[in-house]
């Protein structure tokens, strides 16, 4: 064993200073015995520089972030495929959400459905309105059956915090993709806010500022527990639907 070459695997960890103390000492000794051993650490540093030049950190990080966002959607699709041996079954699931709002769902005029999926490890499930969720759960929002052209999605949690989900930044409401199930570009991790997380989809035929929905959500959030069940106070040409997740303890 004493004449073996230090495995690259251990050399990598040694170079990063991440080998446990005893293993690091053994690796150093082994490297010192090896012809050209010390040079191997220098070569690794040169290789680092070369690979970072070939795959620059900024671009790599952007690609990783892009894949990270896509992964929940991919998992959801896998789940959808399982759910829908025929496309009709999935349609029925969506329809059930749209036509049979659960007791806590506020359904006011709108046709568009707000869909919520949860990813836990490799499992993805479509949640029903009123489902229980935990802090740390990753949820993916989507909407379907949008007939109106513009929309925003906001949420209010049990701590009174209001979050804008669609569009991603305050400004004009998003232009909706009509009649097609469309997922938001990002999945979200639920935080430790207590009691509930309620999402609102607000739509209109005319362009509007997302701040209209945000302001209405803030007013509702200020009313404490009413935010769990009451609708947003919006002008009559807006339509809204909502979806509640009940928060379980962590």
């Amino acid at each position: 064993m004493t004449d073996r070459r230090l495995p690259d695997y251990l050399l990598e960890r040694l170079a990063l200073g991440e080998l446990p103390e005893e293993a690091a000492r053994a690796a150093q000794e082994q490297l010192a015995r090896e012809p050209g051993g010390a040079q191997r650490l220098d070569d690794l540093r040169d290789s680092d520089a070369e690979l970072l030049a070939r795959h620059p950190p900024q671009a790599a990080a952007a690609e990783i972030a892009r894949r990270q966002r896509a992964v929940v959607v991919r998992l959801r699709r896998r789940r959808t495929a399982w759910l829908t041996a025929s496309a009709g079954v999935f349609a029925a699931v969506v329809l059930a959400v749209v036509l049979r709002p659960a007791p806590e769902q506020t359904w006011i005029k709108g046709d568009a459905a707000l869909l919520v999926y949860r990813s836990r490890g490799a499992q993805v499930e479509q949640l029903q309105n009123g489902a229980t969720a935990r802090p740390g759960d990753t949820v993916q929002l989507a909407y379907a059956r949008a007939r109106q052209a513009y929309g925003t999605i906001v949420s209010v949690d049990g701590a009174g915090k209001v979050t804008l989900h669609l569009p991603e930044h305050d400004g004009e409401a998003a232009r909706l993709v009509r009649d097609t199930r469309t997922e938001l570009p990002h999945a979200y991790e639920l935080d430790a806010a207590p009691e509930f997380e309620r999402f609102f989809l607000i739509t209109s035929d005319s362009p509007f500022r997302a701040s209209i929905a945000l302001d209405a959500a803030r007013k509702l959030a200020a009313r404490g527990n009413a935010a769990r069940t009451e609708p947003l106070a919006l002008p009559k040409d807006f339509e809204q639907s909502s979806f509640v997740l009940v928060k379980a303890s962590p």
Partner: protein
Amino acid sequence: MGLDIEQFYRRYGPMVLRRCERLLRDPEKAADAMHDVFVEILRRKETLTDSAPSSLLLLTATNLCLNRLRSARRKPENRDEELLMEIASAEDPAAPAAARSLLAHLFRSQKASTGTIAVLHLVDGLTLEEVAAEVGMSVSGVRKRLRLLKARAAELEDVA
């Protein structure tokens, strides 16, 4: 947990890329795999407790590359590759379950996949003790896994 992906990549990206290149022998596929390794790690970052993530990254990269080799089924060009392909083919036929068990191990609950253990020992040249330390198992546990893999490889050879 706030994790600066760019900084994380800057520190560990070259190591992961070298690992993927060594196992896949294809720079393009290695770069693709490298990105996915980070995605896997970051997906579970809230449960990432190890203060020395290089081990987790290397094990994840190994497992992911084995899965890709298994589905690629290309003709090996040298003995190392041949060995890797044998390991990839001989690993637990329920590969997704094995992958899950590796990830579970990485996040401190289960054990590493047999294929990963075999790569560390047979391809990388780690001793049984070093493998055991890397995957958090006993030496006898590692030995047993390798025996099982060998038996599976022999079975496959018989079938072929």
